[in-house]
């Protein structure tokens, strides 16, 4: 898994790419939680994620919980098909706020 963080005036955009699995999900979790120490709005670009497993989904859930606890906003954007499938199976596709693009998420 690789990641890039883009600073926006009132938000952070985290772009993940590759596989978010048991090996990399602790890093993904740490990145997302740290973002919420800086800003109240985090948008995750998942367009380049080729695979995510339940541990990766758990990282997203923890970030969502951190956002709710601190009155912040956490959203997923441009979710890749493999990621969307796992979220559907996990019955979490309606739990996360999802946007078709990062720009749409930032404008919300």
């Amino acid at each position, binding site marked *: 898994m690789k990641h890039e963080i883009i600073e926006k005036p009132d938000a952070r955009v985290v772009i993940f790419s590759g596989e978010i699995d*048991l*090996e990399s999900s602790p890093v993904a979790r740490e990145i997302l939680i740290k973002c919420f120490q800086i800003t109240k709005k985090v948008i995750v670009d998942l367009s380049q994620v080729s695979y995510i*497993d*339940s*541990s990766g989904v*758990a990282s997203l*859930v923890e970030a969502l*919980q951190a956002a709710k606890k601190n009155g912040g906003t956490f959203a997923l954007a441009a979710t890749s098909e493999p990621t969307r499938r796992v979220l559907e199976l*996990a019955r979490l596709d309606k739990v996360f706020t999802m946007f078709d693009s990062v720009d749409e998420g930032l404008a919300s």
Partner: protein
Amino acid sequence: MVTRHTFPAIAEALPGARAVTRKACEACGCSAEVTQDMVIAISEACQNIVRHAYKGAPDGVATLEIRCKDGILEFFLEDSAPPVDKEKLKPKWPKELKPGGLGICLIHDVMDEVEYLPAPSGKGNLLRMAKFIERDKPNET
């Protein structure tokens, strides 16, 4: 067709197990959708061995055997870890949002059969998962 893949029960070995699963499903004629679901399920089952059977111990080994015959895709996943409490292996959808606990549910969601068999060697765990791929193919007219 039989595919056999033995791998160390560590997180770094999971991409290899996924690649073997994907290749076997494609060779068996599975659709892209079924292949994707099988990869998800097998990866979760392998992850459970790493996390819960061997509890992160670095010297564990697991074997994945994939059989494709008569429209049935069977996966046998065996380890030598202490026996896992079968009660903990039942799918229980979390009643509230929480991280974790999804792997078993995902496996049961995409597989047609999931059962825990006695390990042939007398120790360890043996998980059998099956998918009836012929049944899922659209009818040809």
